[in-house]
């Protein structure tokens, strides 16, 4: 039985006009889509210089040699890319809800990946839960989108999240600064704010995409319940009423607000929406409004 595609073709066509946007200048790299003035491997010619022993013979300007009987080396304009890293939460908490956050997050990650590939950005999809999982890096155009979709399709939501561990590992694994898009419900038993702050302080630009299932924010249940944590399996017995639910929603909103403040304070952006929102509305509405895409 053929698996349903993550994103249909019509939606992909709509995505082609978008660009992943970041606002920070990263040291050593020229951001955005501007060409670099640094010489190096590339397509565009930059300058000539004298040939020195050990230089690549393939870059010798043989026509100039024939005319001038001197060896000149052609230099090209380097095309550095700001690395865009999509940190995708694959913990068990992402699998709760009638339509799981994980499914929604995969589609969103696929959409961002496609936008990046169209603009020849280098996209790294980095799943995480307790630690970082195996990553997938793609670049070079839209024809690389299918392997990215396959990678996303094979992911599973299990285990529990540890943002602190993930942040430490991320910083040590990716010393080069770049844009970090975090797609998660940010539901860690410990606080997720400090590890994210740590990433920002290290020099990464954060784009936090906060997903929640409708019942994550507004529990629909009433009466006697035994609540089980999807990640840890811990239990809590409760007698739910409207007051308790209202207090819960308030606490949830306060947490989302703290995440937003933390992101904006560090030059990043925050966008949060429920999985009940259509993906198209989320991308062309919330994310563009937040400045994640242009």
């Amino acid at each position, binding site marked *: 039985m053929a698996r*349903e*595609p*993550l*994103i*249909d073709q019509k*939606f992909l066509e709509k995505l082609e006009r978008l660009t992943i946007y970041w606002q920070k200048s990263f040291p050593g790299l020229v951001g955005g889509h501007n060409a670099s003035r640094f010489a190096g491997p590339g397509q565009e010619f930059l300058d000539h210089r004298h040939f020195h022993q050990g230089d690549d013979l393939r870059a010798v300007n043989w026509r100039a040699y024939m005319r001038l009987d001197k060896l000149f080396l052609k230099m090209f304009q380097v095309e550095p890319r700001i690395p865009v890293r999509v940190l995708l939460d694959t913990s068990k*908490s*992402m699998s*709760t*809800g*009638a*339509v799981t*956050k994980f*499914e*929604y997050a995969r*589609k969103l990650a696929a959409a961002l990946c496609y936008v990046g590939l169209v603009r020849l950005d280098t996209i790294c999809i980095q799943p995480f839960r307790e630690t970082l999982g195996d990553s997938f890096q793609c670049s070079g155009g839209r024809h690389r989108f299918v392997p990215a979709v396959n990678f996303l399709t094979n992911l599973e939501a299990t285990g529990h999240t540890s943002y602190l561990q993930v942040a430490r590992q991320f910083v040590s694994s990716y010393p080069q600064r770049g844009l970090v898009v975090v797609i998660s*419900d940010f*539901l860690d*038993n410990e606080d997720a704010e400090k590890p994210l702050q740590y990433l920002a302080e290290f020099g990464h630009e954060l784009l936090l995409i906060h997903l*929640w*299932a*409708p*019942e*994550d924010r507004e*529990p*629909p*249940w009433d*009466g*006697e*319940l*035994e*609540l*089980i*944590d*999807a*990640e840890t399996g*811990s239990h*809590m*017995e*409760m*007698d*739910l*009423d409207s*007051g*308790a639910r209202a*207090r*819960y929603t*308030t*606490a*949830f909103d306060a*947490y989302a607000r703290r995440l937003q403040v933390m992101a904006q304070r560090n030059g990043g952006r925050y966008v949060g929406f429920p*999985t*009940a*929102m*259509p*993906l*198209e*509305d989320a991308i062309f509405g919330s994310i563009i409004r937040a400045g994640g895409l242009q």
Partner: protein
Amino acid sequence: MFFLNLSMMEFMALFGAASALVVTLYLLNRSRRKQTVATLRFWVSTEQPTVQKHRRKIQQPLSLILQLLSIALLLLAIAQLRLGSREKSGRDHVLILDTSSWTAARTRTGTLLDQGKAAARSFIRALPSSDRVMVVRADGLATPATGLESNRQVLEAAIRESRPGAAALNLEQALAFAAQVEKLHASRAGDIVYVGTGRVLESDGALQATAVNNFRILPIKDVVENCGLRKIGLRRSIADPGLWEVFLSVRNYGTVARNVPIGLQFGGALVGSRRLHLAPGKDEEATFHFRTRAAGWLEVRLLIDDALAEDNRAILELPSQKPLKVDVYSDEPELLRPVLAANALVEADYLSPSKFKTDRDARITILDRFHPPQLPKGGIIWIAPPAQGSPVPVRATVTNVPVVRWRSDHELGTGLRTKQWKLESSEVFAPAAGDISVAEVEGGPVILARPSPSRMVVLGFHPGKSAMRFDLTTPLLFANILRWMDPEAFRRWEVYGGTAGTVTVPLESGVGPENVKVISSNQQNLPFTMHGQSLRFFSGTPGTVRVVTADREQVYSLTLPEVGEAVWQPPASAKRGVPSRVTEASVRDLWPFLALLGGLGLLIEWLLFGRTRFHVAGAERLADGNPLRRAS
């Protein structure tokens, strides 16, 4: 409407208890709906409402009502609630089918048991279908063939498969059993029905008193003309071991005198015949003699044609009589010949010591003042062994000394008390541990027995070389020695033909329970009781039972049928014959419907209020307006 298994009070008590339990469990129920959530952190961080220890009110009354209703329906099903009145409900009958040996008697229309089966089937077919019947086969034991069963096919199969037994009817026991079944297991007592001729043993307690309620008899017309063997006894003549003495007891159960020819065959050859005149209701006895040492089958037959053929013929297995072979190595065999010839079972061979061999098949060897190069096999009687080669050290040689002590408490010294023996010359032995001193002089033992490795008796003197050979003690001493050495050869065999059931065996004086074994044909020990000098055991099936005492073996071939001599007269209050066909009672079993409804109620309650239902509903509610479906 009535309860079959429970009274109204019992039902109410059970229902009350179950309802109270359900309500209590409902109120105390702490099992909550389980809900998996992404995180508990916001529940922990916010102030939560107090968790109630108990439910203060019934939150889902319909669920509780459904549960209670279902329990009530299931309890009613267990109580076997029925529509109708108790008087119209089925009754439980016990049908005692006489399967005693007498029911094998032939009539013009088959056997008595065939008539009994037909009457039993008629009775069952006349009963309403709601009545239950237990079929009990009765002979010496009352054996239930079915439980209280309403399935007529099962009952008829049990009747059809009944066969005549080997024992006489024990009606007292069968009636007591039926009364107990009616008392303990019947929901509504029906009739105790006896089908048979009522022929019982004279010792049957039913002849004295029959106090059974609801008693019904289906009488079978009895046959009366029959003669049969009652007992057969065989034993070897004491004087002549080759001669068998046969005792017969024959009874005329009929009402007219008969002349009955009797024939005895051994190994197919006629060995005796006689004609007995049997008065009605009387026993006659006859004695036969025939000679054989061989083993074989003795057939005793009444050469008549009467109602019961099974008691006209008996076959008994006779054991062979093997002689006790004794080799005597002596230069003076004439001294020992009279002693050994006195015992008819002994077959002695007299040989010169120079012809000594160890490979002969003698079971006992007598060595007369002779030391063989190698000891023979089997028992050894050693007379005056040479001092150098004596198996027992010779302490001294004495002359003209009297025997002062006999070991009378041992079987070797049984009956030996004489003090008149004066030994002209004798060796006195030095006994070893385990040796038995049979006779002693002042200086020590002169006759010594050694039980192992093979039995050996050593005499320090020759009993035939003095005046002792004219003494009665000498053959008695040798008889004791030979019996001690080979007790099997001296075992007395008695064979009896009798009937299965309780057998009483007369015993000799001095035989205790420790010396008795009662062994069935499959070599298992049967339990027995002893009262004074008689032993009693019970064998429910035909077969051979051996009663073994010290030197006596009695073989009981219990193949003759046990036939009752008396005819039981049923009480005047007993109903007779097959009842007239009763119209079908208008009682309906409701329990299957009640059980179905109860189960259905529980299922509905689970579907409506169960946890799964909640989850499904919740999932459906959340899935409404799912944006992702539209997006993808």
